[in-house]
């Protein structure tokens, strides 16, 4: 039996390969041939290898144990949304709607280590295992059929005609363009390549990670969901490594492998791009701008995948890899394309699955920090990938993949969308999304990102970083921090995190000191432990000819600080709401709920791009913050007032210090706009100028946080100011130029500093599609 499978699969692969090789240039072809030979060898050797019994046997029990209907599983956030109206007291509200925080341990029987099996079994047995996913609602569709139905679609024809009229070129030519766009974009999912991917990734993952934990019950509900409605997998994106991790897991657990939206740079990688394409990736250009035809092809392609229901669809709602390990404000364009078939009644329902990928240590940690400081990202290339293989020698701890509860778009949209609005026009005629559709898409996207945050697992290292960054940077680089102080603080903040509903990966079976020692050891590239003290390590020497100036010194420290900040950010979503209340208490010096709520909402407006807040939930967020602070004894709350007992000061100070770097950084940018900055600027000019301004302030000792140097923060300030209409984009400008309203910026800065109370700031709903 086993042998027969090998033979069949071998035939399959070789056909694919010969086809692919015909399309590749000479140099690549040589590589291909080598690859083919290697695969051939592997296949032949595999025949002699002892066959592995059914690889999923180990999980069978868990799988059946957790089988339940996914529609009954309401995510916490949604459930709380529903119950909101019925409840009166905030405390009762919170305790009822948020499930008791559980400390997830890695030895928890609910979590399964995917690599465990791989370390014991044969990788080839795994690669060539019988793959029989439960059938999707619809029969499979070949990639060429998919392309054809996109080209045949009334929608694309409609747009193509419009484009033809606008540009004056013949329709056939426009359709030809559409065809080549589609070819550049199109995925070409093939089981043979999934197997190749599974083989390679097994090897790589075993080197990189100690374990990859996944939650079995999430996977079980997913298994149910893929058989019912089109499924959209929505992972967060923290590292290049997680690009194929979902496909890998789904293959390992006999679930249909998804089609994945990827950035076009990946397609440019020699061979790897083609392998990705055949593993289900399709590629989207980065800056589409106003290319009408491209939008049309892309959106129809996405919609067709959803409509045909032949495979799950996977995309990153955040749009790109988060450089800060903090969730990004969701991008709404793709989200809208995905949801449209539901709005227009072309599918009964769509199931969204938030997936949270968390790492003990991120592969690109130092690259990311440097990118934030303005060092350009290296281009994705196969050569680069091969060079990067040296990181295979390093230890990156564990990876956690949490499959969230599937969300029914239909249930969530109930009452938010009037689907009748699509009744009076043919559905293929393009239509500007109406305000309620835009708001709904934005709301759903934010909701998913929030659920990703809730599902992500926080490691001890994140909490240690929270503690480390409570200290001034010069202490960390100079005298260092007492280890005992750090570990006591971390254990203390662990309790706080649990109180605030965090999911921790803090094994109970190992003693706390050992956990922290091991976490610090894992991150020895950033911190060093010497003689009972912990020191922050400066970044490596940048390869430069010039002598190192003081500014370079700032950059080197900043790189290290930003790395710490990134890991702190992993835990921030747990603390941010209570921390904003803490900041409100501190800044307003008021106890009145109304006033605190006012400032809390102002902070949400200012930090709208920094942290994820589900639109329309400000009051609930405030109640949530009150509830958690009360729960950990930091505040007392009655109908009118929020009072702080002395015992609560420690918590409040910790939380406030967590938020302080952001407040300080925002104030720096505000100050830049008001004092130094030009009235009109482009984003390209802005970032280096602000960086320079902030560097000066740091050198002069006026500014203590190095996070102000992060381009991410700077961009977020810009977005927030645009949302508050203190900065406006110039319409006529082609280079994305902006105009500053200094008075408005100053006012915002004053409110943030507590000098004037928050007025009703004009915030436009942020729902551009």
């Amino acid at each position, binding site marked *: 039996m086993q042998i027969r499978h090998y033979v069949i699969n071998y035939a399959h692969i070789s056909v694919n390969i010969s086809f692919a090789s015909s399309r590749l240039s000479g140099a690549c072809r040589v590589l291909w041939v080598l690859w083919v030979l290697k695969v051939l060898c592997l296949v032949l050797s595999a025949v002699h290898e002892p066959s592995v019994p059914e690889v999923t046997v180990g999980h069978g029990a868990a799988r059946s144990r957790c089988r339940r209907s996914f529609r009954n599983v309401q995510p916490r956030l949604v459930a709380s949304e529903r119950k909101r109206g019925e409840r009166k007291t905030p405390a009762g509200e919170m305790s009822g709607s948020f499930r008791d925080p559980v400390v997830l341990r890695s030895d928890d029987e609910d979590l399964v280590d995917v690599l465990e099996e791989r370390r014991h079994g044969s990788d080839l047995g795994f690669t060539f295992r019988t793959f029989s996913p439960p059938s999707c609602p619809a029969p499979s569709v070949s990639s060429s059929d998919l392309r054809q139905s996109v080209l045949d679609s009334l929608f694309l024809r409609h747009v193509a005609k419009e484009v033809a009229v606008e540009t004056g070129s013949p329709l056939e030519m426009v359709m030809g363009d559409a065809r080549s766009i589609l070819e550049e974009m199109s995925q070409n999912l093939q089981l043979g390549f999934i197997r190749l991917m599974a083989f390679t990734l097994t090897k790589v993952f075993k080197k990189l990670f100690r374990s990859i934990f996944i939650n079995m019950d999430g996977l079980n509900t997913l298994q149910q969901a893929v058989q019912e409605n089109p499924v959209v997998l929505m992972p967060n994106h923290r590292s290049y490594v997680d690009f194929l991790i979902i496909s890998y897991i789904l293959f390992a657990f006999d679930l249909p492998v998804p089609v994945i939206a990827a950035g076009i740079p990946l397609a440019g990688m020699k061979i790897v791009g083609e392998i990705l394409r055949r593993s289900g990736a399709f590629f989207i250009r980065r800056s589409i701008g106003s290319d009408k035809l491209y939008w049309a092809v892309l959106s129809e392609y996405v919609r067709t995948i959803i409509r045909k229901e032949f495979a799950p669809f996977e995309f990153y709602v955040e749009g790109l890899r988060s450089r800060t390990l903090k969730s990004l404000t969701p991008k709404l364009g793709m989200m809208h394309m995905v949801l449209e078939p539901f709005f227009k009644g072309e599918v009964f329902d769509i199931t969204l699955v938030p997936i949270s990928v968390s790492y003990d240590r991120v592969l690109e940690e130092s690259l990311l920090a440097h990118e934030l400081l303005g060092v350009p990202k290296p281009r994705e290339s196969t050569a680069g990938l091969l060079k990067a293989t040296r990181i295979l020698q390093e230890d990156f701890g564990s990876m956690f993949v949490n499959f969230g509860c599937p969300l029914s778009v239909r249930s969530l949209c109930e009452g938010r969308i009037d689907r009748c609005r*699509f009744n009076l026009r043919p559905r293929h005629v393009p239509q500007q999304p109406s305000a309620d559709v835009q708001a709904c898409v934005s709301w759903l996207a934010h909701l998913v990102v929030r659920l990703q945050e809730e599902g992500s697992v926080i490691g001890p290292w994140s909490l240690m970083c929270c503690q480390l960054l409570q200290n001034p940077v010069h202490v960390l680089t100079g005298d260092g921090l007492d280890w005992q102080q750090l570990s006591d603080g971390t254990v203390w903040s662990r309790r706080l995190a649990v109180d605030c509903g965090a999911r921790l990966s803090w094994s109970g079976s190992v003693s706390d000191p050992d956990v922290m020692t091991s976490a610090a050891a894992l991150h020895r590239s950033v911190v060093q432990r010497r003689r009972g003290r912990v020191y922050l390590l400066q970044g490596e020497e940048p390869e430069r000819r010039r002598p190192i100036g003081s500014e370079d010194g700032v950059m080197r420290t900043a790189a290290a600080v930003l790395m710490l900040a990134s890991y702190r950010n992993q835990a921030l979503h747990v603390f941010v709401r209570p921390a904003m209340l803490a900041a409100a208490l501190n800044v307003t010096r008021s106890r009145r709920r109304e006033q605190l709520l006012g400032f809390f909402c102002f902070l949400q407006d200012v930090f709208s791009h920094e942290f994820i807040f589900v639109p329309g939930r400000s009051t609930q967020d405030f109640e949530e913050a009150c509830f958690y602070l009360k729960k950990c004894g930091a505040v007392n709350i009655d109908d009118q007032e929020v009072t702080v007992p002395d015992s609560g000061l420690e918590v409040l100070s910790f939380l406030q210090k967590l938020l302080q770097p952001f407040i300080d950084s925002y104030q720096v940018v505000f100050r830049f706009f008001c004092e130094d900055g030009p009235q009109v600027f482009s984003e390209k000019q802005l970032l280096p100028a602000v960086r320079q301004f902030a560097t000066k302030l740091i050198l002069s000792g006026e500014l203590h946080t190095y996070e102000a140097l992060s381009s991410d923060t700077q961009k977020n300030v810009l977005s927030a100011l645009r949302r508050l209409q203190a900065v406006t984009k110039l319409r006529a400008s082609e280079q994305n130029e902006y105009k500053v309203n200094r008075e408005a910026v100053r006012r915002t800065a004053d409110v943030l500093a507590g000098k004037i109370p928050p007025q009703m700031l004009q915030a436009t709903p942020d729902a551009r599609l």
Partner: protein
Amino acid sequence: CGRQPGSIVGVSNHIWQIKRQEIMKWNGWGYSDSRFFFNKKGQAEFTGRRYRLSGLIIPGLKDWFESTFGASLQHKTPATVSPILNSSAVQPPTLNEAFVEELKSTGIPLSHDAEDRVFRAHGHCLHEIFALREGKFGRVPDMVVWPNCHNDVVKIVELACKHNVCLIPYGGGTSVSSALECPPEETRSIVSLDTSQMNRILWIDEKNLTAHVEAGIVGQDLERLLNESGYCTGHEPDSMEFSSLGGWVATRASGMKKNVYGNIEDLVVHVKMVTPQGVIEKSCQGPRMSTGPDVHHFIMGSEGTLGVVTEVTMKIRPMPEYQKYGSVVFPNFEQGVACLREVARQRCAPASIRLMDNEQFKFGHALKPQVSSIFTSFLDGLKKFYITKFKGFDPNRLCVATLLFEGDREKVLQHEKQVYDIAAKFGGLAAGEDNGQRGYMLTFVIAYLRDLGMDYYVIGESFETSVPWDRVLDICRNVKARIIRECKDKGVQFSPLSTCRVTQTYDAGACVYFYFAFNYRGLSDPVHVYEQVEHAAREEILANGGSLSHHHGVGKLRKEWMRDTISKVGMGMLKSVKDYVDPNNIFGNRNLL
């Protein structure tokens, strides 16, 4: 009445006496002598001798019934007060004595007998029949009158206006929109105006091919009487055994063979209606007029809110020379719909073309009567083998279209070929006349089946919509799925039957029928659950671009959606007509608005 003896072409047969309940069920569908039951062997049988299925054994029904609904023959829920009505449970009538006195002096027959009143207090919505089976009666009419002709109606309406009595016209009683329910808030005396005695064809005009008919005539009688003269109207709604001409006009009815003969609005040439303001009718019988908005369209679809339709001049056609049934099997529903669309595009639809989905195909299959010869069953087996094995149709996906061709023989055969050729392009295989004919026969017995289901914890109903072509597939899928999901959410323990068929094709769209039934064991208030699910299904229909109703009408059941359907201004227009024609709400059934 001033009718001339010579002009009477025929008189309706014996059935529609004043006491209709003597031959018809008062708490179920149709004739008392015709019903399904499971015999001692557990086989389904259909009693009576009125239908092709009568007296036959249907061996497949029990298995289908049990496996589809999870029902069991052990769990029975017979009607509590069947078959005799307990008149003491009915509220005593509120009579307007002055009205009664004056009416009696006219000699028009009337009754306040409980049986007569209950019989006319309902249509055939599920909740109405369910309540009757449980012996529950809400507000019922206080009196029934049987006018014999147009002038009788004029008198009755005059008296009703004079004494402020509420009139509810009653034709065949086959409404499925709660249109016949007495508004519980009505305090006046309610009089049910039964048109069944106005059942004559007054004249036939062979030059213009029209017939002038009293509006109380029932479909089957109209057709039979016209057939005797060699004509037909061709208007055959599924309820034609019992529904009346006046009812068709009042609800904008649609017939199965509308592709050849047209819907009621195409058939009507002239209407006479008695309103509180007097009689409305046009002065001539011109085939088309440009005289402002067509006043017929205030009458058609007025659902008894404006007056009583008394006489109608209708188009008639010579009886078709040749009729032929047919059927086509498609590999899946999508292909079937594509074929129907193409047939409509080429405007070559046969008299009737209907597409059943897979569930309904299986249902139809379960209703096959026992075959007498081994040869037939062998042939059936061979057919099945050919379709599923040789042609590779998935038995769980295939669906069937039933066809009816009419006309002269040669044209029918030519037409048949054209349609089968189109079907072949969409993977359709001709599946024989027998399947087709059985399909149409089922439309008459399906209502009897609901009564059988209700004996075993199964309740159900059908509802319809019309929808543009591009949305047919989407609406079918979404509404069926919505029904299943709602049932689950509302705590229905067994998976429901949720199925549909496309029953009419138009240039710009189609009429879709949904059937929905479920086993309610374990539910405390099954009718409420049923109503919630039906409500959700209607919302889903509207959200998917379907209409509020294709031919059942609005009644009181679908009133809440009228405003969204025809806009605020549209509502205002209808209201102002009502306010002018019937300012005192004499026709107070409160339908529509």
